[in-house]
């Protein structure tokens, strides 16, 4: 391809994926009609996704504020896609909520505006070429999700949002302190002012920065952004936020926000691993990852609420991903990226299914949902495929990443693989136990047919299955570059 096709908009795509949602916010705040609102929501999300696709073709030159490299483009495109499918899903979901009166028209205006705001802030966080800017963006994202989680204004929802807000803000504070420390470390080398907060310059000069300050900084950043990633013991907000908010938000949280926070952690990991004298960030991440994995795996057993259960499974998988990146090395990093991608797709697909299930059955309590494959075959089997995928069974995508993580770990650090496999087994047992109860046996609860499009659900599942069988060459090459970047 000699000349990239001209980008349809007068601005460069990087700016576009920020501008489009920003406009969306302003527009959607004012739109009273639900139908129009949801349509426009999908439209804006789709436009954003398209422009992010254009980034693959041609990258705008490095800016002082925004930049695009192999690492964040992965997250941007993935996020764009999940945002589109989720907006499609939320169109039908919110419609149903309005009918049942759980939401008011004001809510839905607010909801759609916030949705766009979330997309905006996440893209900003990913594109930011400045640790301060990234911090701001992530905070913005947190705030918007807090508001959306509390949207039902039920006792439980408020409690969840409050918990999320308090823990989130503490995380914010810690992250900010870490950021300041990084600046302090950079300032003697890069001089005062803006340059000391720019990624590209920071990474370039990483080996000259004071290692001790970086160590302390990484502790704060790991805890601060780790709170957003939902690593145990900082996870407390995550299950409730997933369980009590509107299901599209659960999907977005698991599919996108966790990834964005993880992206921040990875950036700083790159910074540290570029500095020979600093502590290797790997062990810390490995430990946190294992703790989250095993803890979440055990927590899965006693769950009564279906959404909360899958929220814990998100913690489990974030643990696996953190573990993989902590292990480092081309294989493990590749596996981590793959796992992250697959988990976003699968988990959001599961939440799509769960959302409709909760709507038709009129409950989120696991005990009251039975025999789905019989009462709602399309939903039930969709859920089965999703859970089987999330449990890491072939031929679905997550199996490939788990295969790489486990086997490479066992070959390098056999003792580390033991707790890893243990946690995976325990979690697998819990998921399968619940799946057997929910999907099979005598059907119970509401039998009404679902009026919703299965497109989001099955498009995700198709991608996951496809990826499990065949990964396109360019994608692989691209992942391998990133894996090398991560060192």
């Amino acid at each position, binding site marked *: 391809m000699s000349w990239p096709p001209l980008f349809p908009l007068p601005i460069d795509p990087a700016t576009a994926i920020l501008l489009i949602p920003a406009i969306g916010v302003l527009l959607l705040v004012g739109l009273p009609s639900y139908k129009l609102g949801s349509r426009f929501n999908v439209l804006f999300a789709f436009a954003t996704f398209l422009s992010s696709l254009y980034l693959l073709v041609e990258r705008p030159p490095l800016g002082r504020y925004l930049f695009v490299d192999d690492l964040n483009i992965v997250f941007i495109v993935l996020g764009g896609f999940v945002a589109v499918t989720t907006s499609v899903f939320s169109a039908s979901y919110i419609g149903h909520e309005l009918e049942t009166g759980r939401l008011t028209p004001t809510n839905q205006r607010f909801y759609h505006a916030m949705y766009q705001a979330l997309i905006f802030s996440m893209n900003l966080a990913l594109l930011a070429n400045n640790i*301060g800017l990234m911090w*701001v963006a992530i905070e913005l994202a947190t705030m918007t999700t*807090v508001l959306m989680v509390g949207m039902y204004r039920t006792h439980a929802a408020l409690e969840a949002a409050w918990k999320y807000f308090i823990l989130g803000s503490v995380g914010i504070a810690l992250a*900010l302190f870490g950021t300041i420390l990084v600046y302090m470390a950079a300032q003697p080398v890069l001089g*005062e002012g*803006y340059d000391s907060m720019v990624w590209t310059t920071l990474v370039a000069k990483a080996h000259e920065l004071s290692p001790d300050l970086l*160590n302390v900084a990484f502790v704060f950043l790991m805890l601060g952004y780790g709170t957003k990633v939902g690593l145990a013991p900082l996870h407390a907000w995550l299950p409730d936020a997933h369980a009590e908010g509107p299901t599209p938000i659960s999907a977005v949280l698991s599919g996108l926000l966790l990834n964005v926070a993880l992206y921040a952690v990875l950036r700083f990991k790159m910074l540290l691993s570029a500095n020979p004298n600093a502590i290797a960030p790997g062990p810390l991440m490995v430990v946190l990852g294992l703790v989250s994995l095993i803890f979440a795996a055990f927590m899965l057993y006693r769950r009564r609420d279906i959404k909360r259960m899958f929220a814990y499974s998100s913690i489990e998988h974030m643990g696996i991903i953190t573990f993989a990146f902590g292990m480092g090395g081309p294989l493990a990093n590749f596996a981590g990226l793959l796992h992250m991608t697959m988990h976003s797709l699968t988990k959001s697909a599961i939440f799509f299914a769960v959302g409709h299930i909760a709507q038709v059955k009129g409950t989120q309590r696991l005990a009251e949902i039975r025999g789905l494959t019989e009462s709602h075959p399309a939903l039930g089997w969709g859920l089965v495929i999703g859970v089987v995928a999330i449990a890491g069974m072939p031929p679905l995508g997550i199996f490939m990443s788990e295969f790489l993580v486990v086997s490479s770990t066992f070959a390098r650090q056999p003792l580390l693989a033991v707790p890893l496999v243990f946690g995976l087994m325990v979690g697998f047992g819990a998921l399968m136990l619940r799946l057997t109860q929910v999907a099979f046996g005598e059907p119970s609860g509401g039998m009404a047919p679902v009026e919703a499009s299965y497109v989001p659900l099955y498009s995700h599942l198709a991608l996951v299955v496809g990826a499990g069988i065949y990964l396109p060459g360019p994608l692989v090459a691209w992942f391998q570059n990133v894996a090398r970047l991560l060192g």
Partner: protein
Amino acid sequence: MERFLLDVAHLLAGGLVLTSFMLLYQTRMSSLLAVFALQAVVLTLSVAWQAHVQNAPHLYITAGIALVLKAIIIPYALSRVVRSLGIHRSIETVGGIGPTMLAGMGCVALSMVVMLKATATANPLAREDLAFALSVVLLGLLMMVTRRNAVSQIVGFMSIENGLILAAAGAKGMPLVVEISVAFSVLVAFIVIGVFLFRIRERFDSVELQALDDFRGERR
């Protein structure tokens, strides 16, 4: 001269830590808010001093923000809330004052050790500042952990923010971005908290976290 500048900066930062301890020590909501306002004033002074020392004028803005927002508006608003809820008298702390103070000491010591070791190369002004800032942050966190009451937790959270501002101010030549973001986040924080207090009052007649915590995810 250099020495004097340092000492004053040191004094003010130390004062901030001191006020944090006072916060920990308070047992009455109204006095808690008062002390918080005091801390904000001290913060303002120290930031202003930093501005003077580093002759970085933009820091005066930060100082201004701190003064207006933290020393006046927030305490006032919170005390309104507190009175309207009629909980201005008591705060029940966890584990008593004494142990809390000891823990606070521990935190300060820890932050000193960590920071002074880490910033051996940085310029002395920044060193002192960072060490104190870290202890203020830790103390604020400690306060959030040892108070059962929403408002006092919010106060604890704000004192964490104070620590951050102190650190940011200490960081020589740190661009305005950060201060604005801090102010902005505090603003957002306050708004959201306000919203929440409001909603919470709609539902329960207090901001006791117990009332929130009785749900805790899944009924057991």
